[in-house]
């Protein structure tokens, strides 16, 4: 591990939904600057909810999340948007605007800096060039002027990565980024994600349910079972016994 500088501190985080289901039951851990942290766990373990709490897409029930010195809980309006510019997010279903071109989608990452010009979709030439450069680094330079709905799934997710990188975020949250992709595209997308985070020195939190991908790319791994942290350690510590424990509960449920 590079540095032991804490970027995100999560303490006793609890989240329950209106129906009464408790998704997170007191989660605490730290995220260090510059690392790639993978969160593993069965589906329904609370991985998505955890990530969505970090950038305030879901309001937490109790506890605290501090991102680079700022408490997320209770942030509203402009301050919440400001926090979100520091936190990029990548979704399982890509969530890029299908009817816009690839370059426009990448430029969406800059919206928070634009105000009314952003409403009209008018960006500076510098930002357009930067968007092109990042898309080229993700090997999408031939696709920049295409409409996003003409791309394959893997390409769409790379556009989503470009959009997140355009934000110049301190931390990148990736929620099951390859769950909708075939194995070939999956390892390619994770490779790009890993490479560009290293190059840009961006801290990343990636949730995955495939253990082998986690082992390949993680600096550190956290295991989540039914809303509780049940594993914390390096990829080498995630042995068969630990995996058994992580997924044991799920099998019992079924």
């Amino acid at each position, binding site marked *: 591990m590079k540095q032991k500088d804490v970027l995100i501190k999560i303490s006793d985080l609890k989240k329950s939904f209106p129906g009464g289901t408790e998704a997170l039951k007191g989660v605490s851990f730290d995220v260090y600057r510059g690392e790639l942290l993978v969160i593993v766990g069965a589906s329904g373990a609370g991985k998505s909810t955890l990530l969505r709490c970090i*950038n305030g*897409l879901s309001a937490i029930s109790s506890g605290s999340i501090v991102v680079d010195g700022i408490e997320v809980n209770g942030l509203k309006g402009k301050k919440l*948007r*400001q*926090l*979100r*510019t520091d*936190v*990029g*997010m990548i*979704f399982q*279903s*890509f*969530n*890029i*605007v*299908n*009817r*816009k071109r690839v370059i426009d989608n990448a430029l*969406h*990452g800059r*919206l*928070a800096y*634009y*105000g*009314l010009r*952003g*409403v*009209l*979709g008018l960006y500076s030439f510098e930002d357009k060039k930067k968007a092109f450069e990042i898309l080229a680094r993700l090997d999408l330079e031939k696709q920049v002027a295409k409409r996003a709905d003409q791309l394959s799934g893997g390409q769409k997710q790379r556009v*989503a990565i470009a*959009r*997140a990188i355009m*934000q110049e975020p301190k931390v990148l949250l990736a929620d099951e980024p390859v769950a909708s992709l075939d194995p070939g595209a999956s390892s390619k997308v994770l490779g790009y994600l890993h490479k560009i985070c290293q190059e840009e020195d961006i801290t990343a939190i990636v949730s995955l349910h495939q253990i082998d991908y986690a082992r390949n790319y993680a600096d550190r791994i956290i295991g989540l079972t039914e809303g509780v942290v049940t594993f914390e350690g390096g990829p080498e510590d995630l042995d068969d016994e630990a995996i058994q424990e992580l997924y044991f509960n799920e099998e019992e449920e079924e």
Partner: protein
Amino acid sequence: MDRNMENNLAQLKKSRRPGQLRLLFAIILVIVAVIWSWAGTGFSIPAIMRGVPRIYNFIIDDLIPPRFDSWQKFLNPTLQTLYMAYVGAIFAIILSLGLGIISANNLISNRLIVYLGRGISSFLRAVPAVAWAVILVAAVGLGPFAGTIAIALGGAGMLGKTYADSLEEIDMGQVEALKAVGASWFQVLTQAVLPQFLPDFFTWSFYRFDLNIRSAAVVGLVGAGGLGFSLDTAIRLFQFREATMGILWIFGLILIVEFITAKSRDKILEGL
């Protein structure tokens, strides 16, 4: 008949029963409704029998052939009908964009505002354009001004609902992603909501313009300008051949406008 066959037949009967019962019930309902209406309106076969030759004579003796030389009389009213429909459509679209957005429950978190928006749309929609025209003629006087506003209000009711329904069907993932980059509400609206909404927006708006032409052609019957007014005048003066000419103008206007809107809609949709 062997036992197996009997079973099969029984099963066949059973499978048809619930649907048949419902069908029977519906048929009885329709028959009762028709008899009730028949009695209520004093509708009678002899009246129809007497009516048919009269209608036939009216068409042959009075309506046909149209007085083609009166075509100029209808030129201005036709243009006025077009103007009313167009301006009414633009006003309706502007009004409904606001109405549609506040009525979409995925864009507005305040339930009360959504109910208010939906309520306004359904009120505007339920009152027919001609009824609006009657009120507006009373308020602002005869002429196309009253007709234009009547058409705009009626159209806003329909578009407000259809816009809201389309907006509620957009993919919220794209909206959420832009919220996650820190975009403001208006930025999310133009950059994530609008691109998804545009095809439906154009389809419904053009369709509304088609409907407006029909409304604009009849609001004149209550004094709100356009072809309906000239048609009413012609009939009141027993100038039936001129009236036929007016009807041909309405027919022609609707066909031409439908053709043009279909072409331009396709052109715009393919460019989006």
